[in-house]
């Protein structure tokens, strides 16, 4: 990365640009609102756009040290996000318990950095099942939360 680029807060500028777009969309969609219902969103959207523009201007004029790029293990991060999305989308259709077991196991694998040994696998499987089972029981039976059964369970 070149010297000058490293001294510009690129992520911040990108974020602010995104919010400018977001504000613009908010204004666009507010055309159909009633007068009273549109006052607030429009004011906020305009304020947001102005502030974001100001932020970008400041970021260009006063180069601040960009936050150090966090140590990356990108595939794990992305994998976690995918699992979470799947969890949220599937839990009602497939069933809470089954989805949770599958996703819990998946995240366990994603989070583990040590080399897998058979002993470790068994230990993690057992303790994971215990924790998950305990938490599930608290929510389902103690707190009486109606966890959806879906197709499986």
């Amino acid at each position, binding site marked *: 990365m070149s010297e000058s680029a490293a001294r510009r*807060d690129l*992520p*911040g500028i990108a*974020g*602010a640009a*995104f*919010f400018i777009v*977001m504000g613009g969309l*908010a204004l666009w969609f*507010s055309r*159909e*609102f*009633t007068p*009273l*219902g549109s*006052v*607030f*969103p429009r004011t*906020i*959207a305009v304020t*947001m756009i102005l*502030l*974001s523009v*100001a*932020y970008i201007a*400041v970021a260009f004029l006063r180069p601040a040290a960009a*936050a150090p790029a*966090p*140590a*990356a*293990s*990108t595939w*794990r*991060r992305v994998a*976690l*996000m995918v699992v*979470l*999305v799947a*969890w*949220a989308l599937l*839990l009602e259709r497939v069933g*809470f318990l089954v989805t*949770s077991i599958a996703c*819990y*196991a998946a*995240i366990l*694998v*994603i*989070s583990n*950095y*040590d080399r897998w040994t058979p002993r470790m696998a068994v230990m*993690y499987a057992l*303790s*994971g099942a215990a924790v*998950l089972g305990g*938490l*599930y029981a608290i929510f389902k039976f103690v*707190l009486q*939360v109606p*966890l959806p059964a879906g197709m499986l369970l």
Partner: protein
Amino acid sequence: MPGIEFLLGALTPFNILLAVGGVIAGTIIGALPGLTATMAIAVLVPFTFGIPPSSALIALGAIYTGAIYGGAYSAVLLNTPGTPSAIATTFDGYPMAKKGDGDLAITLACLASVIGGLVGAAFLLLLAPPMAQVALKFGPVEYFWLAVFGLTLIASLSESSVLRGLVGACVGLLLGTVGVAEVGGDIRYVGNFQALLGGFDVVSALIGLYCVPVLIDLVATPDPHLKLTHQVAGFRLGEALRIAWASKVNLARSSLIGTVVGILPGAGGSIASLVAYSEAKRVAKHPERFGKGEPDGVLATESSNNATVGGGFIPTLVLGIPGTPPDAVILGALMVQGIRTGPQLFGEQSEIVYTFIYGLFIATILMLPIGLVIGRYAFKSIVSIPKALLVPSVAFLTIVGSFAVQNNAHDVQQMVALGIFGWLASRAGFTASPIVLGLILGTIAESGFVRGYLIGNARGEPVSEFFTRPISIGIIVFILIGLMYPVITARRRAKGSTNE
């Protein structure tokens, strides 16, 4: 002291047992992200139907105050407020944990919660009826200015960039407009997503924006989540007591702020702790330490949010208007029991009220030993659990917690969506707190603005309505002070440095 004859009634073994059980249950439930005090109370209310009303109130009050305290655990250890009241506790609680002082933070939270709770209960005991009248004077216009005040505080809290904090707050405000507009009934920004019809739920947003980014970053490195710089032997109680004593003014002021904000129906612990934190930072000798792990920050937020428990009971019991969401559930429970709230509750039926208030005192005091013990176990378990188990377990809590809010899978989807969005935003430097606080304050601000406008308009003077009411003027003055203060201090500091 009024009703002192009922103190004995509160000290029965049965009531003490209820207090202890309530505090334990409340603390554990409040600690789990996604489970709020409201939920804890709603679940346990049915168990209170067979017992006398004052005992039922003691149990529910104990759960309530335990839950508000418990929210500090996940705030400190996972950077996720266990309840909205604990949002401001993440500001300094989590940095303390990252520095290795997590156990100290939890002990401080316990001390502060007990002190705040006692102050709130004291006001409930001594000054309930007059303070309830104060609550009534706050109309839509006052709430609007209060929300604006809160928003200016958000701006001043963002150390690195005020602009970033304000943009974040605007994002939160905008997110708050999604759904059915309270006034006018417009359906805003929903599109074809049924999931958004009810708007963004605050608790789901809380869990998503705070917890998911933490999880995403946790999986990225093999480092342990929190490191231990010392042996986890004692509770560091002596150290915590010393810090608390040195900070007694802060504790007193924050508890007072919490009580007053708690009285205002609909305000709640999140706003109380925000105001208390800002004030503590403003008058501190070293304000730059706040946000990096300053114990006074934790003391301010935890005392103010527990003070809202006692404060919130004031309008609930005196007027029949719930001060905070858990109070609404408690009111319902009282209705089923046939207890009618109102001035007569403090008159002819005073036995129930005073037995309850003394019971609340007892429960709060008992929270000290109970809270310390539970806190120690919470801390040890989070610190020692291997990452491979910690991450999926917390992930499960986020999923089930966001589901449990309204028993609706849509909230889980919201949570994950906001979580990923929150992680991306934090990579760009936009943290979660301004967004969440914007979300909470946005609804209050808009409601206050539109209703105030309609009321003023009915009298033919919509604009002056906002600027001529005495309490509003007071709040506006606070806003101006808040905005000017950093400018004045910066100028003073600059002058000081040029003089050298």
